[in-house]
């Protein structure tokens, strides 16, 4: 079990003035992370009816929340609603096979897209990756996801179209 990096907790403000906390994920965030995942589903009400909630199975949930903060890092963006901490976005990186590179992924709740939370998460993630000694941050994005590609360019990512794989593009950032 790694020590929780308290020094990486930040308090910021979204474009609309909403206070948001950007902090590394904690083992005890399972409940909050699970709620976040459930909330992502557009048809979440149907899942309740069928009795199968859309959620992370126990193994995966543990993988997402019980991290070492070095080779596997994840930042969550949270707000407070009625006294409860709610997750509105998560960005993580995992060390890739090549030792100086890491792969990242980011997910933001639909309702909170365009509020600036993605930028805050990515900046925190990139900074940490740089400090941990990674030289490259990379990822796969759907070619049709123009929004994400525009965002990636703004952050300084270079975009490479994979030959023979029209559907995804590979993006790479020199840290």
């Amino acid at each position, binding site marked *: 079990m790694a020590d929780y990096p308290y020094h990486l907790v930040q308090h910021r403000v979204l474009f609309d003035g909403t206070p948001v906390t950007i902090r590394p994920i904690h083992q005890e965030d399972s409940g909050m992370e699970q709620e976040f*995942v459930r909330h*992502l*589903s557009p*048809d979440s009400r*149907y*899942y309740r*009816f*069928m009795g*199968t909630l*859309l*959620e*992370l*199975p126990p*193994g*995966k949930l543990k*993988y*997402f929340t019980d991290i070492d903060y070095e080779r596997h890092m994840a930042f969550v963006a949270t707000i407070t609603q009625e006294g409860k901490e709610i997750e509105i976005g998560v960005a*993580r990186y*995992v060390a*890739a096979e090549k030792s100086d590179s890491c*792969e990242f*992924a980011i*997910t933001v709740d639909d309702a909170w897209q365009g509020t600036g939370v993605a930028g805050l998460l990515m900046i925190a993630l990139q900074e940490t990756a740089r400090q941990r000694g990674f030289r490259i941050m990379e*990822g*796969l*994005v*759907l070619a*049709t*996801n123009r929004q994400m590609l525009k965002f990636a360019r703004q952050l300084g990512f270079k975009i490479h179209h994979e030959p*023979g*794989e*029209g*559907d*995804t593009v590979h993006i790479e950032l020199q840290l």
Partner: protein
Amino acid sequence: MDARLPLTLDVITSAEAGTLPGLFLRRCERTPDGEGYRQHDAASGTWKSYRWREMSAHAARWRASLAREGLAPGERVAVLLGNSVEWVCFDQAAQSLGLVLVPLYTTDSPENIAYILGDCAARLLLVGGVGQWRVLVPLHARFPQLSRVLCLSRSANVPVTFGVEVRFTADWLLADAEPVSMRVADPHGLATIVYTSGTTGRPKGAMLSHRNILANAEAVTRIVPAYLEDVFLSFLPLSHAFERTTGYYLPIMAGSCVAYARSIQDLPEDLLAIRPTVLVSVPRIYERVHAKLQQQLADKGFPARVLFGWTEAIGWRRFEAMQGRGRKPGTGAELVWAVLRHLVADKVLSRLGGRLRLAVSGGAPLHPKISHCFLALGLPLLQGYGLTEAAPVVTGNREEDNVPESVGAPLSGVELKIGEKDELLVKGPNVMLGYWSRPEETRKAFDAQGWLHTGDQARIDDRGRVYIMGRLKEILVMSTGEKVAPNDIEMAITQDPLFDQAMVVGEGKPYIAALLVLNAAAWREVAAVFALDPDAPASLGQQRVRDRVLEKLHELLRSFPGHAQVRAVRLSLEPWTIENGLITPTMKLKRSEIELQFAAAIRDLYAGHAIPV
């Protein structure tokens, strides 16, 4: 197929089988040394044969390996593979552990696949190559339940997968597995969720039980007998209910062999290599053989066309006579037929391998002109009708009772009724359990008396034969109040080799117009006739080209009423594909998508036109 060879009937009934894995088990026990499957091995360039006893061993190995994943009965596992022996092994392994199998189309878009994986909350996915998984990685948030990906072919480029472990089957399959016993499933329990690629909106998962499928396969064997000696050539995707039931479970029931075609492109060669005795297909394949035939006749010249015409005419009379409709041709004609059969008919049928005793068509309407041609040449071509929600076959022509314009009479055990707006309603042991996680859609599909609403308009004649008149939602009502079935018009248009794809519009409009995708090669010929540059975009917009097209359409639609004639066209060379989201994996037009994308073009088709005569 030589009718003198013995044909052995050895059908395992639905009752004997109990469940889908039970069916497979019984077959492997009953005819262990019989040939079950044939598959092309790329490395050696030969067709490899699999006996039932070998399949049993393979499936057991997959089962033992899958059991170690610790999945609970009822959990869903998905498969994204082309038709193959591996598909069968995975399906059997999953079924025998009480897992629910969710088949995916390999041609489907990543978004659609991600949607389905999330919707059914799949825990495990089997893919053919890492590339298929890579395109899903950016969407992984949509299917949080997935924890494991199995990949058939080894490769180096495995992306980091954020909580999903990727393993290659060569490493994952246990070499000396402790045999794991099959879990006994409830025959009425959920066996598989088959997503219908919706022509509108998101795909819906039809929940089918073991009994739904077994009852259906057995009922089909009663109208289309299958024997131990039969060889099926499988090329329609197993993710489609039609191939699943009639091209996979039915052959197991009958003990027939199934050979997996390498690809649609290799089909002509594979037909000659395998020489199937039964062909299960969608109309498109028969259309293509027919189109090729027409082209060759056109090239060969007048005498060849006359000869073919005779063959068709006499052949058709023989067919009608055998069906009890019309007089048998006289001895003279029979002699001519014997010669023509050798000279003409057999040559055409040899392209299909030359051993076909039966061809089945389903999944879409088959143009009578095509079925007439093959029937006249002596090939028993049987059209049927069904829908995924009915596991899927509802009606079918029989060899001895074949009216090509109809889709046949209902299978035994299937009840039919015509409801409001001429909608065909179905009841039977094959009707689905409902839509997965869609209580509202399920309620809409069934009425209060439990009849499944097919969404197709039909009529039933006094002999119980069904004639499909059109899709309920796809009837266009013009501003004149006149009704038009766009499917029929489109089907008539695409008979012509110039038109690859066609979509008819005219809802609430004074006349019918069409969006047409031209065949590139045929277009070059037409452009040459008009001394136009085929590659210049302006060429397609030339008035004389449009006039020529309208003339052609007038000819193709001559049997249609006046109000159904096409008055305006928009021509394009850009095909509507699965990738650009304009057609479904089963090649059906996504009308609302096409209308959306070409909204401006459609408006132009009606701009400033007075109502024409």
